[in-house]
């Protein structure tokens, strides 16, 4: 089978929002990544310390797939979303849609994406890519973390789509089926911000939102007890930086992207006050960068003194205070 869809490849900061944004652009709706992120209420925080994870970890965005669902609810865009029981059916399903000339977004495990650099290839099932054609036995992949469209063999893609484990993709794919002609942008943006404030402040679970940040700040002093050896601890501390900066967040755990969204929201809602909030978010992001740099240095220097870890915990706790005040004010002003 040979199909090449004329798809405009774009690099973006985050995989899910980038994939959605390029898919919608293909179907004629130009919507920047930051707006997708904001309307989808992507900003979040969660600290996880349970047996599901080899070591305590944290997230800075909502559940994978949630941005698409929120966007669909708030803008009325209908997506065709499908999971499969077997790899054979998943491949047949994908080929069928490609033959119609529609680019498809699929969920995969990073580990099997052979075109990515080695250090990115870890077992996490939360990556989204666009499949934009097929050349013999190779699929054409537009991955927004990669500078150009690449070829990936059938078997690797299927392994990635049926990796199993946490948040198993089960061959999940989606593409926009129906895009309305007119949108109620102010309503969508308003709802996106309101929900983000709820997620950050009021969600009644002690490790999510601002409460999660506080728990993270308190718990980080205990990390040396949980690590196997000093190199493991160093690796985990460096990972704080990676999770905040490098894993497709646009810097500072999506805070810079959210600041960009708030600036756009000020225009859409015609509320100049949101420009100030945008500036404040940028500052909060800068402070997160301070946290990640501090953690990276501790990791690099194998510096695990209790005082320094306490200091790191304090920095994170301060971030919790800042974000709590920010989202409270944002929630009131909107």
């Amino acid at each position: 089978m040979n199909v090449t869809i004329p798809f405009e490849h774009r690099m973006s900061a985050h995989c899910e929002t980038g994939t959605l944004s390029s898919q919608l652009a293909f179907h004629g709706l130009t919507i920047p990544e930051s707006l997708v992120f904001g309307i989808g209420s992507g900003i979040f925080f969660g600290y996880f310390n349970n047996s599901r994870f080899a070591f305590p970890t944290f997230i800075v965005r909502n559940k994978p797939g949630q941005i698409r669902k929120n966007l669909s609810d708030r803008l009325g865009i209908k997506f065709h979303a499908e999971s499969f029981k077997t790899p054979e059916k998943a491949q047949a399903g994908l080929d069928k849609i490609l033959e119609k000339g529609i680019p498809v977004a699929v969920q995969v495990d990073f580990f099997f994406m052979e075109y990515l650099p080695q250090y990115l290839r870890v077992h996490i099932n939360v990556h989204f890519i666009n499949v934009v054609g097929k050349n013999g036995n190779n699929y054409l992949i537009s991955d927004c973390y990669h500078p150009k469209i690449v070829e990936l063999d059938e078997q690797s893609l299927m392994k990635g789509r049926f990796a199993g484990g946490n948040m198993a993709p089960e061959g999940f794919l989606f593409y926009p089926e129906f895009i309305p002609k007119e949108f109620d942008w102010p309503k969508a943006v308003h709802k996106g911000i309101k929900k983000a404030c709820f997620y950050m402040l009021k969600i009644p679970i002690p490790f999510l939102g601002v409460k999660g940040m506080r728990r993270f700040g308190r718990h980080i002093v205990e990390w040396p007890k949980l690590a196997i050896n000093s190199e493991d601890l160093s690796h985990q501390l460096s990972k704080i930086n990676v999770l905040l900066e490098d894993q497709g967040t646009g810097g500072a755990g999506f805070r810079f992207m959210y600041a960009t969204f708030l600036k756009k929201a000020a225009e859409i809602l015609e509320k100049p006050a949101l420009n100030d909030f945008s500036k404040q978010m940028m500052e909060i992001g800068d402070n997160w960068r301070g946290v990640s740099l501090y953690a990276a240095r501790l990791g690099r220097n194998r510096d695990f003194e209790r005082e320094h870890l306490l200091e790191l915990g304090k920095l994170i706790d301060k971030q919790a205070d800042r974000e709590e005040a920010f989202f409270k004010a944002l929630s009131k002003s909107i």
Partner: protein
Amino acid sequence: MKEKDVIHDYKVKKYIFYAEKEDGSYGPVEGGSYMIENELDDFWFKKSHLEKTLRAQLLKGEISPVQYYMVLEEMTVAELADRSGVCKVRVKKHLKPEGFRKTHVSDLEKYAKAFDVPVANFFQIIETSSGLNPNYHFYFEDEARKDKVRVIQQKTENPLMVVTKTEERTQ
């Protein structure tokens, strides 16, 4: 973040960051990541050291091959059980060398699929002249380039068999 604070002279990988531009607007900017540009050597050092420690333990018979691959690929017992389809209690048993002796071949096949390695590699370590395990060549590609030959493991129609051969390195 200001646009000027983004690492513009990146060498390893291009990323997209959101930053304040000179005209005061906010938007995406191309740049390099601090960790990837500065700390990648430390990351590889830790990873290769971990592999060497685990390999020494494995060859002494202190850990089982399942644990070797599980730790290297950063999985938990629950995650491995989920990915392979072997139940958690059995995975725990197979992590110990004495438990591994009683593994069924059908279980090994499932593990091999989850780790993406040939079944044969649960019973052998293939080393090249630079002391690397070819399974993890993709982790240590720069080091592996020093070798004159490269080891290739070709899958066959029989899921239990693999053809291992050496090839002249061209690049």
